[in-house]
């Protein structure tokens, strides 16, 4: 490409500090750093190895779901069904691991989640129905389904069958909890897909300008459908982790967790209009959510107050990332 005299790429004046641009880019990092520093001052226990590992272990499920949600949000969609799919994943894994062993059990569970995502994905992508409503319907239906499958009761696994999975839930590798490794693997894979593959590029492009992508001869619905399948599969995987930590499959876990997951992605700077968002910031978003809950527990903030604080933090994150234009006026 010819460098031209008429189009100077970066005028010198733009090198000066632009607070709005800075926070748009690094807002999530800033919030995270401020939170960690603040938490360390508030509580001596916060920076202990044990507590850090605890936070990481707690967010592993949310983090994995946030990756799926990130894909959906990148296309400009939303997936409200992940909390219910998590419950289905938990129930199915408990039953299937008992019956068929760990490998097949986990596989069946993830497949069930992917199947739920396939149904919502087809309805959103091919029938053109609004994702908010369709995944809201799926949220209700899948929750009911999980309760039907579990007969409304917690599902205990036989001791032999559950050994492998519960060991995973409570185990460590190189001093880091196993579920955290799984979350890290999911994030790395998602990062590779988004950065280096055709699929990742088209997901972002569809969120940026769906019509231009369609008019380039891309089968847009195929990709839109795929992100819901991914989201469903990862939500079920998070359900498997829940089961692994307690040894029990339950149809009532994860109620409201879709909102935490969406909050994590949005704190990570993703735009609900689509096209904008990344893996690293999403991880930071999930960490922010985890750290807030953790520090409030450590210093003994009552549960209801925690919810108010959580809401306030989300608003502050939004103002930092997107509020600069509003302040400038």
């Amino acid at each position: 490409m010819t460098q031209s005299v008429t189009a100077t790429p970066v005028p010198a004046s733009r090198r000066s500090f632009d607070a709005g641009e800075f926070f748009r880019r690094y807002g999530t990092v800033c919030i995270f750093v401020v939170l960690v520093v603040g938490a360390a001052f508030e509580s001596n226990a916060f920076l202990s190895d044990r507590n850090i590992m605890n936070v990481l272990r707690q967010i592993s499920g949310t983090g994995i779901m946030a990756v799926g949600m990130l894909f959906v949000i990148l296309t400009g969609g939303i997936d409200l069904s992940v909390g219910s799919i998590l419950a289905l994943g938990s129930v199915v894994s408990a039953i299937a691991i008992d019956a068929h062993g760990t490998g097949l059990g986990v596989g069946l569970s993830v497949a069930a989640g992917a199947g739920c995502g396939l149904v919502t994905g087809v309805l959103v992508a091919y029938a053109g129905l609004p994702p908010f409503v369709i995944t809201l319907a799926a949220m209700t239906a899948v929750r009911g389904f999980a309760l039907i499958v579990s007969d409304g009761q917690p599902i205990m696994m036989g001791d032999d069958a559950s050994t492998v999975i519960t060991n995973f839930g409570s185990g460590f590798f190189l001093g880091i909890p196993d579920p955290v490794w799984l979350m890290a693997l999911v994030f790395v894979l998602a990062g590779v897909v988004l950065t280096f593959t055709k699929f990742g590029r088209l997901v972002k492009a569809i969120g940026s300008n769906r019509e231009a992508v369609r008019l380039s001869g891309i089968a847009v619905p195929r990709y839109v459908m795929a992100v819901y399948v991914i989201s469903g599969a990862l939500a079920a995987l998070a359900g498997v982790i829940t089961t692994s930590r307690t040894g029990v499959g339950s149809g009532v876990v994860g109620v409201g967790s879709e909102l935490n997951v969406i909050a994590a992605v949005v704190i990570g700077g993703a735009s609900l209009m689509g096209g904008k968002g990344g893996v690293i910031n999403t991880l930071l978003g999930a960490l922010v959510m985890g750290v807030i809950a953790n520090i409030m527990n450590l210093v003994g903030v009552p549960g209801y107050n925690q919810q108010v604080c959580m809401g306030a933090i989300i608003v502050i994150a939004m103002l930092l990332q997107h509020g600069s234009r509003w302040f400038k006026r």
Partner: protein
Amino acid sequence: MSDLLTLTGITKSFGGVRALKGVDFSLRAGEVHALLGENGAGKSTLMRVVGGELQPEAGSITFEGRSLTLADPKAAADLGIAVIHQELALAPDLSVAENIFMRELPAAISWGKLNRRARDVLARMGFELDVRRRVGDLAVAQQQVVEIAKALSRDVKVIVFDEPTAVLSSRDAQRLHDIIAVLRDSGVGIVYISHRLEEVFKIADRMTIMKDGALVGVTSPQVSTIDDVIRMMVGRSLAALFPKAAHRSIGEEVLKVENLRRGIKVRGVSLSVRAGEIVGLGGLVGSGRTETARLIFGADAKESGEIRVHGKVVKINSPLDAVLAGIGLVPEDRKHHGAILDMSIRINTTMARLKPVVNALGFIRRQRERDTVMKLGQQLRLKSAGPEAPVSSLSGGNQQKVVLAKWFHAGGDVIILDEPTRGVDVGAKTEIYGLIEELAAAGRAILVISSEHQELFGLCDRVLVMAEGELRGMLLPEDYSEEKLLALAMTNSVAADQAAPLDLPAHKHQPVN
């Protein structure tokens, strides 16, 4: 008879471009005054001044003998000036009655009274319509009646119709003319903008002709002929921007389209383009050219029609099908349809054919992609900070080059360009003309849509002219003149009354594929 409304020396600029250059216009009570001119002549701008939507920089407005300023549309409406735009301003989910009294809906609606008053207004116009019906369910012609009734719900003295019959069949147009006659006889001053000269000559008392934002003259159907009026409208000339036509050899027929149909915008269009040939598609804005292009490309679903590429029938139900058949489209709306502005030149350029830059596992071969994009950038003389620069950082001309590069890369045999130089500066225009020539010289079949007649004449081997969703004729280079093009585009309305009553929105985006 004294003038009801007089505009004197109206001047208005948009970002340095003078859209109105001291225009005079007068309207009497009880006359139909036609306002004529090409697209971009300034007719609609002038009427937006009358409607209070735009404030002129210079000039004066006199209404009923009083000099005044129209600060906003409400001020104009309060005086009894109503402007009925091409795009109707109706709330589709509300009833006919609610729409008619939109501006004065009470907080608590008394349905009986509202409906009775609505029926009264319609009856005065000589129209019967169920006032409880949802406006979105009505045909376009009926919606127009509602829009007029809305104006008549108040004491109205001036009504401006901006191309009211563009979307109407000839029977509905006749009914509209009957309404206009009633209004005229009751002393309302009517401004009538239309591109159908024959109907203008039937109903107008006087005609004002504009060109390039200036007044050309005022005449009447008794004094002038249609040919006279067309001659007054044309005469804009572009500088010689066109590359000396390379020696192109025109080969086999590549694209053949037969009897393409969709709603009232495309009514049985057949055309063909041969290898190495540049065919123009001319006509006025709204004549169905863009819609035709979108149907060929599969961007909208066609009701009927057959498309052949290299003699073989291809099923085109989506842009993907079109791209696979070797057809590319440079759309009219670059920002929304052509390019992904937030993304890089590199990503935009390879979007229509990713195969050569993706390996078997779906990973992007970044180096190869960069090389491809750099090479195309040089070939198209793209001015940018590099392949990673977002398209939004480029000038209009260079953005358009990225869209062109996309289809250079895709390598299909048919390329359709819809207004390829809109919003492009003169220098880049010449370069884009050169690139189009290059594509043709390489044996591609090119279809160019343009509203700039000189552009069509400079570029094309022949020009097809569309009006009202139909092809009205063809011009060969020896016939190239704006008069002949406009005569085809603006007369000979053989609007079929059996025109499909579907009224499909032309740009309705298909959610599927």
